C-alpha cells in the first residue's frame, strides 16, 4: 500500500514481551508451547516401544531410566502441558464446531460436555487396558 500523503506517521513498535502484557496472551503462548512437550513425550514413548522390541533387558533398563529424578521432572512437566493442551483445545472446540440437529443448533455447553465425556471415556478405556 502506498503511504497516504501528509505529515509523517508514527509507526509504533511492538515490544518483544507483548505476550506478558495480559494473562490471555500468556496462556496462548503456553498453549502453543504445550505442543512441544506433547511431541517430546510422544517421542519418549516411541523410544520405550523401540526398547521393548529390543528384548526384556533393554526394556527394563528403559523402565529404570524412567525413575531418574530428571526424567520424573520431565514427565511431570509433560503431563501438565498435555493436560493444558487437551483442556484448552476442548474448550476451543465449541467455538469452531457448529453442531446442528435438524434446524436447531446444539448449545456450545453441550458440545463441550460431549468432548469431556469422550475424553473421560477414552481415558477410562486406556486405564482399564493398562491396569489389566
Amino acid at each position, binding site marked *: 500500500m502506498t503511504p497516504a500523503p501528509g505529515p509523517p506517521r508514527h509507526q*509504533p513498535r511492538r515490544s518483544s514481551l507483548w505476550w506478558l502484557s495480559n494473562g490471555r496472551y500468556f496462556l496462548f503462548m503456553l498453549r502453543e508451547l504445550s505442543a512441544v512437550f506433547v511431541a517430546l513425550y510422544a517421542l519418549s514413548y516411541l523410544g520405550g516401544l523401540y526398547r521393548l522390541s529390543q528384548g526384556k533387558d533393554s526394556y527394563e533398563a528403559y523402565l529404570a531410566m524412567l525413575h531418574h529424578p530428571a526424567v520424573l521432572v520431565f514427565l511431570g512437566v509433560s503431563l501438565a502441558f498435555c493436560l493444558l493442551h487437551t483442556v484448552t483445545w476442548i474448550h476451543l472446540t465449541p467455538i*469452531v464446531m457448529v453442531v446442528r440437529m435438524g434446524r436447531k443448533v446444539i448449545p456450545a455447553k453441550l458440545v463441550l460436555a460431549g468432548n469431556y465425556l469422550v475424553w473421560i471415556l477414552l481415558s477410562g478405556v486406556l486405564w482399564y487396558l493398562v491396569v489389566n
Partner: protein
Amino acid sequence: MKTIDITVTRYDPENSPVPYEQTYTIPYDDEMVVLDGLNYIKDHVDGSLSYRWSCRMGVCGSCGMTVNGVPKLTCAVFLKDYPQGVRVGPMDHFPVVRDLVIEMDDFMDKLRAVKPWMIREQEKPVEEGEYLQSPEELQLFRQFSMCINCGLCYAACPVYAADKSFIGPAAIALAHRYDMDSREEGQDQRAEVIGSHEGIWECSFVGECSVVCPKHVDPAAAIQRSKVQLTKDHILGLLWPWGKS
C-alpha cells in the same frame, strides 16, 4: 468534586518526532466515561488534544483507543472504574497521525477486499418477490453482522501486529457473515481472498479479538469456522472435481 489523572499519549510530528505522554488532572463524577474525560480536557484544559469520536453510544466505532493497555471504545468505559488514574493511547498496531488519531486506510481496504455485499449469480426479477429467509437462517450469521468496524480487534491481534498483510479479524468475520447468508452465492469469490496466504491460515487462534469486541461479535469463531468450511470445500473439490450440482 473528585479528580482523576488522565495520562494521554501525544504525538505532534511538527514539533516532536516521537510520541510523549501528558497528564491532565480533571474533575469527574460517576456518570463520566473516558471519552467525557477527553472532551473535558479539550473543552477546558487543552484544545490541541486530537482524537476521534462521534456517537457517544457504542454504535459508530470512532472512539476506539487503548485504555490502560486494553483496546476499548472510550464511550463505553467509565472513569470511576479506573480510580488509580487512566492512561489513554492510540489503538495499537496502526500508524498514528496525531495524538490519539490513527490511520485506518489499511483496515478499510481489507474490509472492501472481502466483498461485503450480496453477490448473486443471477438476480431474480423484482416481480418474483423477495429473497425469503427464515429466523434460523438469520441466526447463522446475525452476530457477525453486528460489527461496527471500530478496529479494536486489529489492535488486539498479535498476528496483525507481526504481519500487516494479514486480512484480520473484522474483515474475515464480515466475509463469514456474507458466506453464511442463505441468499448469498459469492462464497467462491471471497474464498480467493480469505483462503489466501494472508487470510484465515495466518490466524493462530489467540482469541483476543473476540474478547475485546464491544459488540460481542466472535471474529475468532468466524475465522476457525471458515478454516473448516474451506478445508471441506477443498477436499470435496478433490473428490468431486466436476463442481457443485
